């Protein structure tokens, strides 16, 4: 297998964007190409992650993006894995470069949904669940994670205020990220007083619906060295699955796909959770960050609450989680999120993260899943 590197990254701002889905996808792609210092003609394939292109009247995004980049002859494909689309797409790009099919490829993730309104997004996102048992019985996505939260709070004697601490921390980080959707300092009190969306989760426990695009350039080591000194290596890549419906899982407070993907990624990298300097994890709701950081092995089961209370996951803590602000504050354009996490790790490990830089970080991990973690990908990166 070829050693695989990321040599460039770009993102639009996340939030409510005016431009079309194509325009924002192309903008992020151009930024990634320029960040890598390559010519578009050096790209041999495009991996496009998106879920609801239909909402902005554009599916089959690959050829449209490639045409806009002046490389219509380059093959591309679209990948949908709900909110995990970006990292799943990255994994396919990684595998093809590792196998030697391509020297350099583009992975672009994009979503444009905010113009559709809350009812449309709530309804269409629910189609990502195991619909017969979940969305088709009135469960929204906040509702599914709220059900995980209720079980977690009861099992581990945690409180809704503990969940709020995750939101407060991620908003603090997002304030330092110029591209974040929700750049606003909040308090535990603000979270507790926000409107209930799906008990016990309130509005400020939930990530926003966002528009946005992110892109990265993935290549083999020879290509990387020929173009730049400022790149990172992919040292671990793992994927996993879970029973699609929550009811079918052994534990309601553990996401099996995360554990499977993480074990595979750690094994490939020859590392343990203790070796990770920081992580971008899938905090679509505050409860998810607690569950994720336990399933990834940073904390024992039920102990993430103590870690958050002690500030261990803050930017200056023992294991900073979501220095970008996470899905909660940076935003969650679902097809772009997994690529955006990798763009953040690229920025962190190549000295481009500004005020939110994690001090002395050499190894970063990304964790991104689809739906309630029915599908998951974990990647580990190292600075060079």
């Amino acid at each position, binding site marked *: 297998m070829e050693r695989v590197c990321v040599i460039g990254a770009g993102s639009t701002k996340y939030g409510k964007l005016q431009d079309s889905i194509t325009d924002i996808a192309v903008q992020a792609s151009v930024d990634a190409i320029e960040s890598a210092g390559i010519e578009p003609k050096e790209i041999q394939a495009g991996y496009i992650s998106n879920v609801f292109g239909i909402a902005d009247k554009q599916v089959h995004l690959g050829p449209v993006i490639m045409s806009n980049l002046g490389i219509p002859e380059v093959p591309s494909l679209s990948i949908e894995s709900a909110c995990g689309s970006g990292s799943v797409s990255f994994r396919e790009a990684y595998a093809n470069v590792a196998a030697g099919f391509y020297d350099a490829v583009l992975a672009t993730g994009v979503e444009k949904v905010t113009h559709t309104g*809350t*009812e*449309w997004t*709530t*309804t269409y996102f*629910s189609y990502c669940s195991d619909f*017969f*048992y*979940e*969305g*088709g*019985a*009135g*469960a*929204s996505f*906040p*509702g*599914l994670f*709220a*059900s*995980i939260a*209720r*079980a977690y709070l*009861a099992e581990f004697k945690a409180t809704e205020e503990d969940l709020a601490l995750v939101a407060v921390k991620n908003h603090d980080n997002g304030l330092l990220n110029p591209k974040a959707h929700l750049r606003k300092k909040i308090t535990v009190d603000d979270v507790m007083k926000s*409107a*209930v*969306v*799906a*008990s*016990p*989760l309130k509005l400020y426990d939930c990530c926003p619906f966002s528009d946005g695009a992110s892109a990265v350039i993935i290549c083999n080591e020879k290509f990387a060295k020929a173009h730049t000194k400022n790149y990172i290596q992919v040292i671990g890549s793992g994927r996993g699955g879970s*029973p699609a*419906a*929550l*009811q*079918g899982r052994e534990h*309601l407070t553990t996401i099996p796909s995360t554990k499977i993907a993480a074990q595979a990624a750690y094994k490939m990298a020859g590392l343990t959770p203790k070796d990770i300097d920081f992580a971008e994890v899938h905090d679509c709701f505050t409860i998810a960050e607690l569950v994720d950081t336990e399933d990834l092995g940073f904390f024992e089961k039920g102990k993430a609450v103590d870690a958050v209370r002690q500030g261990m996951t803050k930017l200056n803590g023992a294991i900073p989680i979501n220095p970008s602000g996470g899905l909660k504050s940076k935003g969650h354009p679902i097809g772009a999120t997994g690529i955006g996490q990798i763009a953040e790790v690229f920025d962190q490990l190549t000295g481009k993260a500004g005020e939110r830089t994690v001090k002395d970080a050499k190894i970063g991990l990304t964790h991104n899943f689809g739906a309630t973690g029915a599908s998951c990908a974990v990647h580990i990166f190292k600075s060079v």
Partner: protein
Amino acid sequence: MQAAQFIYSKVYNLAAKEEFISTIKSGKILARKCTKCGYLHLATTYFCQNCGNKGFENALIEGKGTVVTYTIITVPPAGYEKYAPYAWVVMKLDGANLRISGFMQNIKSPADLPLGTKARIAGYDERGILIEKL
């Protein structure tokens, strides 16, 4: 069209979902027990999750159990506006290592539904599988 549907359903035994729903309507759950390892699945599973076997025998389970988690939805998806607030509930079935989830009407606050509340399958309609407190 009719013939094509018949062949499809015969080959893949897709009638199982209809059978499952009609059983739900009578307050029971049609589970499938693996003939090789005994693992229990909801009827909509076609291969054993535990051993990969394709042979099953029917196991009719009483649709009664305990609420193990739930949420109360105040921002509903389309079609559920007139029912909100309502609960979406995960219930562990009595006497079987199996959970099932569904819609529960008339739950306005967590005080209405402590974890551990006994509940039962109450039917199936446009809201999905219906669960009610015992």
